[in-house]
């Protein structure tokens, strides 16, 4: 295919090069061993060939290649310049010109004339050199479509990789694009700080990649470092499984990776006292923690694949009412509590038999809990498909061209979370089509494709799911936000807020930057509604935007609502749980601090003033204030707020139990949980607590202000 926009440049350039070639050849005729002239001829041929190949003048590049081959030999001293060679090359030069003129609409070229020249040129080459292998099409065994294979890849770049301008991150990212991928960085080669040379790379990586691409494609990623790096790619396939008798054992994986010797394994297994082999191996110092992580990940991935295959084999399922599941979850919650009591009792009894039973029960209970919570998980893909239609209809209505690309449809989330996620997602997508993407004409003018893209993805990240709604539109207009925020009094005139703070203003209640109201969005139902919905799912939302490139909304959600990762705190004799997702840090508050702040509920956190509220006062608890209180700084309603408590006990994962109907009007509590010793801890709902406190504060200041007003008017 000819690329017309380059044709004219190419033609001019080639004509110039051809005359240079001619001059060079004539010089060579006079001084056959002039190295400069040889070089000049070679380079002219080389450049003509390269440019012609680049823009699709294949006849020229093919023909010139033959001539260049001969001159390469001349240049390397394998062939002397002869009168015949100069004659032939001059003829070739004219031929190149004719072929080019033919391409530009001149008279057609006799293909036999060209062949005669190349044949004669080839005849000049000594026999041994003609035996260059034909570049045959390499037959690659294409992996059966849709067949996924899991690979364990160990990539250890040369220490000087940075000095070649390559960043391992780029390679790893490319790898992650090939499929499902878990990357574990190995840090055991990193030296002490004073021996560390910041220009060297000490890290290496273990990657577990499940992909439908074959091994060659994976190797391709590393093509630029392959010769210098240590690269091991092992496919974890059926043969391996069969050899291991259907179940891949941890020890086998470690030996196969070369992280463990069979003797060490034998030795540790004989001395093993605890039920977990991996733990014993790490304790014995024969494998490192990260090596174990890799092996465990491989094992898990293999199990996943087996399960998937099994699921395909016997795609049988039964329908169960979700209430039944809910009650099962409740029961497991109780069971976890009882188990915790058992463990606590066992710990205090110094009875090895009892301890063993307690440990066993603990393991089974947690397994059971995981499995039951798993039953409630559904792939988010069902929701995604709903959006295709939405996008299609909306883009017609608004006269925009939009395609929706989704990824991670198989990501699983708790059923209730998925149900309550629909509306916020619809809102985000509407928003992206209406405000995010520009009209086709505007896009074309900015050098973009007329069709905009909305990218919707879901991925797992620890105990969370990350959802992303990204558009490639014009980005958020920061000036508009600033202006609007000023007019609404959200931003005082002199205060310069940083970029992310500024962007996050769009989540403030009643905020909208678009002047006119369209029928799709901008009806006063703003991003604050989305934020509130996400907050109620104990998630968080953030926004990032680049002018001209687009906007990304990132929603982080817990996998399930039935369990909460909380921070357990104590006030007097009561215990409370704060959602860990909102907690930022804990700091101490002494009486002196309180006195310094004029007894106002304000605390200084690294230069920033943060208001706090005392749970003791809010919940009316008696008892003496401790000498030093703890303030848990958390994010609520888009700001940092502290919660003063007596003690911070620690992290606590717990099953949430709903409060009874009787307490449905109580604000500030989202549920309760039963602790190991049988006592109850209340789970705090932070946003209502903060709202309540703000309201009280405002009433108070209003009251003082009006009082002052009264005083001043009297004087």
């Amino acid at each position, binding site marked *: 295919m000819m690329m017309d926009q380059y044709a004219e440049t190419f033609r001019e350039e080639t004509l110039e090069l051809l005359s240079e070639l001619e001059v060079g050849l004539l010089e060579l005729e006079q001084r056959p061993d002039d190295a400069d002239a040889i070089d000049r001829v070679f380079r002219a041929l080389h*450049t003509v060939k390269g440019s012609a190949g680049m823009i699709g003048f294949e006849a020229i*590049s093919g023909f010139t290649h033959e001539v260049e081959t001969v001159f390469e030999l001349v240049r390397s001293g394998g062939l002397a310049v002869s009168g015949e060679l100069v004659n032939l090359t001059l003829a070739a030069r004219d031929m190149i010109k004719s072929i080019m003129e033919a391409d530009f609409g001149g008279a057609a070229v006799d293909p036999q004339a060209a062949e005669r020249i190349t044949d004669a040129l080839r005849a000049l080459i000594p026999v041994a050199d003609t035996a260059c292998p034909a570049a045959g099409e390499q037959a690659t065994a294409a992996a059966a479509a849709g067949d996924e294979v899991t690979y364990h890849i160990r990539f250890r770049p040369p220490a000087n990789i940075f000095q070649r301008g390559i960043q391992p991150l780029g390679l790893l990212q490319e790898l992650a694009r090939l499929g499902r991928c878990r990357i574990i960085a190995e840090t055991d080669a990193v030296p002490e700080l004073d021996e560390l040379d910041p220009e060297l790379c000490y890290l290496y990586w273990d990657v577990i990649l499940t992909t439908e691409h074959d091994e060659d494609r994976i190797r391709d990623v590393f093509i630029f470092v392959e010769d210098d790096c240590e690269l091991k790619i092992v496919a974890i396939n059926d043969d391996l499984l069969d050899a291991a008798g259907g179940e891949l054992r941890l020890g086998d994986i470690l030996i196969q990776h070369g992280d463990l010797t069979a003797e060490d394994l034998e030795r540790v297994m004989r001395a093993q006292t605890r039920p977990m082999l991996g733990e014993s191996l790490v304790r014995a110092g024969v494998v490192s923690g990260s090596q174990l992580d890799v092996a465990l990940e491989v094992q898990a991935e293999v199990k996943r694949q087996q399960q998937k295959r099994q699921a395909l084999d016997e795609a049988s399922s039964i329908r169960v009412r979700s209430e039944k599941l809910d009650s099962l979850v409740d029961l497991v919650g109780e069971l976890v509590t009882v188990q915790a009591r058992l463990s606590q009792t066992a710990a205090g009894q110094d009875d090895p038999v009892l301890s063993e039973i307690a440990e066993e029960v603990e393991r089974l209970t947690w397994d059971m809990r995981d499995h039951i919570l798993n039953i409630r998980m559904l792939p988010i893909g069902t929701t995604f498909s709903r959006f295709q239609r939405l996008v299609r209809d909306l883009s017609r209505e608004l006269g925009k061209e939009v395609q929706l690309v989704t990824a991670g449809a198989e990501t699983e989330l708790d059923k209730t979370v998925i149900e309550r996620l629909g509306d916020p997602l619809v809102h985000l997508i509407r928003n992206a089509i209406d405000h995010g993407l520009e009209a086709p004409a505007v896009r074309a003018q900015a050098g973009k494709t007329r069709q905009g893209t909305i990218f919707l993805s879901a991925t797992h990240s620890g105990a969370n799911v990350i959802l992303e709604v990204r558009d490639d539109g014009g980005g958020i207009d920061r000036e508009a936000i600033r202006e609007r925020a000023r007019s609404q009094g959200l931003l005082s005139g002199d205060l310069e807020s940083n970029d992310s703070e500024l962007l996050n203003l769009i989540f403030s209640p009643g905020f909208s930057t678009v002047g006119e109201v369209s029928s799709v969005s901008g009806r006063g139902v703003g991003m604050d509604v989305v934020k509130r919905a996400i907050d109620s799912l104990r998630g968080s939302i953030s926004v990032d935007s680049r002018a001209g490139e687009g906007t990304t909304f990132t929603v982080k959600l817990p996998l399930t609502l039935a369990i909460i990762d909380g921070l357990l705190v104590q006030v007097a004799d009561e215990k409370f749980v704060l959602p860990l997702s909102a907690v930022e840090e804990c700091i101490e508050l002494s009486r002196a601090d309180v006195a310094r702040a004029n007894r106002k509920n304000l605390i200084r956190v690294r230069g920033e003033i943060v208001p706090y509220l005392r749970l003791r006062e809010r919940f009316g608890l008696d008892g003496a204030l401790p000498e030093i209180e703890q303030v848990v700084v958390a994010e609520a309603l888009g700001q940092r707020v502290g919660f003063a408590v007596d003690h911070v006990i620690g992290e606590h994962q717990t099953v949430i139990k709903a409060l009874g109907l009787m307490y449905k009007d109580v604000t500030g509590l989202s549920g309760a949980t039963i602790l190991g010793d049988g006592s109850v801890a209340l789970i705090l709902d932070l946003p209502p607590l903060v709202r309540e406190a703000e309201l009280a504060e405002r009433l108070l200041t209003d009251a003082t202000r009006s009082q002052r007003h009264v005083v001043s008017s009297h004087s």
Partner: protein
Amino acid sequence: MAKKIMAVDDSATIRQVLKFTLQGAGFQVSEAEDGDDALAKLANDPPDMLITDLNMPRMDGIELIRQVRQQPWGKFIPILMLTTESQEAKKLEGKAAGASAWLVKPFKPEQLLAIINVVLL
């Protein structure tokens, strides 16, 4: 801000192809026609990445790579060298001089962008 890439090649056609492809992908492109020219232009305005041909008059690509790697700004930048299929030895030489990656001419624009995607973060 758009990343800056300098394209060094003695062929105006190749430079034009590079420029068009890279600009289309949102990069800011500067050009030079050989190593000498490149070094003179680079001194005032170091790029985020360098793409260079190997066979050039005055200063060739290998020497250019070597020189750039000695500059403080050029120590870690990605350098892509353009080679032809007959230049295996040159490729090794370029790698030894500090080239990050290579691409065999003729190439398709997608191939070029795929490599940049990996080496230029």
